[in-house]
């Protein structure tokens, strides 16, 4: 299976999610976290990476549309493998990074 790079597809969603979840995070910090999430997604085992890439591509198309964030949020609440788990994956990677690196980061309101 060719090595698919998904980081660029994941980045817009991860950025948006973090802006909603952890508004106290500065732009530079957020970019660092998003880059980390991208690296980890690129290192996923083959089939999972392929699935995540598919979901990330759909989310990427939807996000810029009017009401895109709401659609994406609703989709990610579906109890389907990968679809529902994609935001969970992004969150878990991002949160692990944020609070390991900056344990005193204040939190904000939750998003998707």
């Amino acid at each position, binding site marked *: 299976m060719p090595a698919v790079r998904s980081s660029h597809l994941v980045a817009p969603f991860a950025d948006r999610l973090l802006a909603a979840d952890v508004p106290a995070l500065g732009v530079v910090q957020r970019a660092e976290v998003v880059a980390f999430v991208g690296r980890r997604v690129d290192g996923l085992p083959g*089939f999972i990476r392929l699935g995540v890439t598919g979901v990330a591509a759909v989310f990427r198309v939807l996000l810029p549309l009017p009401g895109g964030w709401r659609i994406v949020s609703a989709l990610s609440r579906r109890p389907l*493998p990968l679809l529902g788990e994609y935001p969970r994956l992004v969150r878990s990677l991002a949160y692990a990074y944020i*609070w390991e690196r900056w*344990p005193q980061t204040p*939190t904000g*309101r939750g*998003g998707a």
Partner: protein
Amino acid sequence: MSRSDAHAQVLVIGSGAGGATTAAVLAEAGLDVLVVEEGGWVEQGSVVPFSLEQMDRQYRAGGVTVALGLPSIAYTEGRCAGGGTEINSGLYRRPPADVLARWAVDYRIRDFDPDELFAIADEVERDLSVGLRPGAATPASEVLRRGADRLGWQNDEIPRWMAYPPDGNASQAHRQSMTRTYLPRAERAGARIEVGCRVDRLELDGPRARAAHVTHADGRRNTVRFGDAFVCGGAIQSPALLQRSGIRGHIGKTLAVHPTVKLAARFADVVNTVDDVPVHQVTEFAPDLSFGGSASQPGLVALALSDHWAAFHTAMTDWQRISVYYAAITSEGRGAVRSVRGVRDPIVTYRLTRRDRELLRSGLARLALVMLEAGAEEVYPSFRDAPVVRNRADLARLQDRFVAGRASVMTVHLCSTVPLGEAEGITGASSYGKVHGTDNVWVNDASLLPTAPGVNPQATVMAIAIRNARRFAASRSARG
């Protein structure tokens, strides 16, 4: 191993609980042993336990691996010299006698003598310095004991494979993983250990495997010829390698795990112990259900709160007063490992049964009750739209809202993908681990356990691996 083609009397693939013990026993019996390990050699203490750096260096895929299903189950595997033993919590449970007896009958395992396995367990306990933690338990561990005691529920401290300094300072303990114990022993007895070396497939000529095709971390490839191969890559990678090598049969069809759900609990005082895990376990409902504590660095606390972040996020500022706990079940569900030709990683799936889902629900509620009894001010269960639990009345809401499909289910105990025994149709290897239909391919790791043992599995993996390796060595010396 030189980068040109190599040869060994016995090739051991993987250096975890199964591979390291196999290598030590066989090398000490005078056999010429080569161990190849996909991951690198990382000295204990050179990375912070449970950190992202550790995930990068010692876990497969940075710790992000998942068994697909509804819900999917996140799992982790070690990928380094010593395998899972380098990154695990070091909690030691002997194989339960009733489980061994059931396996012997149900899977028709020949000469599966519990006394022999317990005698091996005695040795392992000495070799790994298995014992209780000196001094007082950590506050996070104490929570489990206190809560369970108040409910009159059975609980105990689990011994660990740790060497403590003479002053008994538990924070300076060293995990007696394979890189500190059986791998050096194997080397002293003459075994060669090659790290950063992955076996892509075995080359077979009928029932006989002749060579292993390997790829080194720097991308170079070569071939290792051998007399016998012991596949000890763990319960996911061993069946995957056998399948990639074209070996059929009951391989990878019956993955068994201990699924867990978790919660975070906040107390009035500081409970978080960043550099250690709780050692108490609540066993009142074991083996169906048991409760314990997880690593609780701030990042992992955030993760435990992430399923209902909108409601739970404010707790994060109090992470020092929060610790994370799990409810583990003995699942009746099963999963599968499937390799597809030309694809590096297998697809892993797992299906929980209705009873499993109910156990997860009742387990999480009971665990929350333990927390309340221990004095938790607030409990945050890890599932989507979970309520904050502040009192017993909230437990009913937790139970009402819980759906396994919305929970973060995970596991670190993987087994049973190549069950041992003679029973047709349900075993992948013989009573001593030789893969059915082959002459010289053996499995000797967690894959052999016929079912999930209902307790932390490493001791069982090691006891069975040592038993099988001794049997193999004896048969070789009998042949001369």
